[in-house]
């Protein structure tokens, strides 16, 4: 029998392929439930909202199908008035929208920058060996574990202009003369939001960076120690480059998160134009005004902006999401 097989390589190769296709089939069936799930919770809603953005759908006719196709009118349209002047309409001509875009990008940039620096510092501390390290590592996660609504409310009270502890402390120390209405004032609302977000999300960042730090072999540091290299130089020349892959992935997660910020701002500074973000604007349009067409157009733009940022970031930073190049 063995001679037949070896004399007939054609056939044995055929067998191998069938074994491989069997594996591929099995893999497909294992993946199928997740693919179906993803289709219903991600692909379908995304597709629907993109479709809505090309119609004049309203809250009460999205299921009856009474809406009409309007092309790109929700994004940008114009009408020439009788006097010859042009009147622009649509999301792209909306000053509120551009305010929200600017707010979101400003928030994302500042919060992620602060969280990265602070997270790195915290991670470096947690990476050192000291007594009770396990406890500190667990404790530092608490802000992240608290639901955003709860922490936003909590900070809302702490920042309250009349009863807030923050004003009280600043007054006592003498940094300010009179209480500040942190969340209400246009010039401090963004600071308040940033403060809470940094407090809340730094632990997450620290944990991701800590995981990266622990991947760096101890030998590297010992070798540098024997060479007598200054710790700062070791940090910038050894730790940081070796940490870069982990850092890039952590930053990308946070940027994605920050660009679609909603809950914290919705609770902490609901009315402030200084902090309104793309998500909040689109929520208002959809839920409060029932304008599904324009709201969907905003959502779609938000999606595109986030996609653009991620692509830019991956391209600029050559982020290795698959982890293959890190070896």
């Amino acid at each position, binding site marked *: 029998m063995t001679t037949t097989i070896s004399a007939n390589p054609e056939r044995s190769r055929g067998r191998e392929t069938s074994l491989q296709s069997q594996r591929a089939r099995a893999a497909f069936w294992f993946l199928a439930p997740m693919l179906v799930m993803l289709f219903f919770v991600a692909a379908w809603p995304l597709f629907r909202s993109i479709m809505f953005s090309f119609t004049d759908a309203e809250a009460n006719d999205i299921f009856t199908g009474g809406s009409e196709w309007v092309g790109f009118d929700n994004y940008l349209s114009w009408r020439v008035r009788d006097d010859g002047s042009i009147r622009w309409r649509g999301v792209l001509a909306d000053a509120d929208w551009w305010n929200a875009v600017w707010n979101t990008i400003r928030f994302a940039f500042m919060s992620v920058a602060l969280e990265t620096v602070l997270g790195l510092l915290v991670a470096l501390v947690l990476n050192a060996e000291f007594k009770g390290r396990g406890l500190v590592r667990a404790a530092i996660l608490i802000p992240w574990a608290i639901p955003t609504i709860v922490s936003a409310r909590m900070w809302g009270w702490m920042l309250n202009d009349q009863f807030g502890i923050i004003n009280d402390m600043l007054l006592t120390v003498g940094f300010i003369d009179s209480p500040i209405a942190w969340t209400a004032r246009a010039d401090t609302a963004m600071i308040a939001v940033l403060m809470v977000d940094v407090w809340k999300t730094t632990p997450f960042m620290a944990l991701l960076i800590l995981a990266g730090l622990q991947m760096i072999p101890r030998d590297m540091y*010992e070798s540098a120690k024997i060479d007598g290299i200054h710790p700062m130089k070791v940090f910038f020349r050894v730790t940081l480059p*070796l940490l870069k892959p982990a850092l890039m992935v952590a930053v990308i997660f946070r940027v994605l998160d920050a660009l679609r910020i909603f809950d914290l701002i919705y609770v902490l500074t609901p009315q402030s134009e200084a902090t309104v973000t793309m998500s909040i604007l689109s929520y208002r349009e959809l839920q409060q005004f029932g304008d599904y067409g324009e709201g969907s157009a905003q959502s779609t733009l938000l999606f595109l902006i986030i996609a653009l940022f991620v692509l830019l970031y991956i391209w600029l930073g050559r982020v290795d999401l698959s982890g293959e190049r890190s070896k």
Partner: protein
Amino acid sequence: MANIQLRNVTKTYGAVNVIKGIDLEIKRGEFMVFVGPSGCGKSTLLRLISGLESITTGDLYFDGERVNNVIPSKRGIAMVFQSYALYPHMTVYDNMAFGMKLGGSSKADMEARVRRAAGMLQIDHLLDRLPRQLSGGQRQRVAIGRAIVRDPRVFLFDEPLSNLDAALRVQTRLEIAKLHHDMRDVTMIYVTHDQVEAMTLADRICVLRDGKVEQVGTPTELYDRPNSVFVAGFIGSPKMNFLEGNFAEAHGCATLGIRSEHIDIVPEGQEMWQGRVVHTEDLGSDNYLFVDVGSGEPLIVRQPGKATIPEGTVVSLLPRPGMLHRFDAAGRPVQMPIAAQ
């Protein structure tokens, strides 16, 4: 270039005693190998000498100067790590020059030193590569080259060959021996668990067991005159044969040791022991007979050439005169001369 002295050095981690009082002198330019089973404290001892770990009690001297509290970079040492510890994001050149850049040496001087070290190890053509583009053996050479560039008084090796495959290990061993030859006045300390590496490289070997020095001596001394059952069993391959009970009592000791090459097959009637060959191993140049003489473990008898005695044969064995090692119940050698037989 340094004479190293350890005086009653101990190291404890919390309640655990890892190094239990070591007195040792390593001479200038000597190649000293620390060998022992895993957990014996050999790597810890090396790290104490390097300064990466602090000494709990006792004194460490380099050329008569107490260096207990001198930081590693001021001790004039270079270390080759088991994992090579190369920086993956730097080229071979940068890896080798990294430690020097701060030293205030001029760029030309730096380059000359790197090139000289690279030339010694024949890695000149690899200077622009990244570590991940190198084979295991090449990485090991870069790690050694980086140590050479530092121009150290003391060269420390922490199991440098254990990540290499067998063939490469032999080759690299040869290169380390050559390095020692070329750098005659640099003291080298080498940690390994492989007694063959210890035997082939060392000027002197320090056998460690359970945080204490078991024996220090040249490879030949350790092989010919082990001063404990532990050293006798640890040094040499195949392992020394040990006989106990009546076999040992007949020679006035608790444990009788005999190396496999010191047993001859003799005609019946002249034997000291007799037994059946239960297994043979043919190594090409030599062959090992496993002979069951009724002592528990079979005796290993080394014969030159190919195996000619089939399994199942009963053979008569006679140890060569003066080659028996006698140990008392505590595992120490019995000094009395062997009684006339």
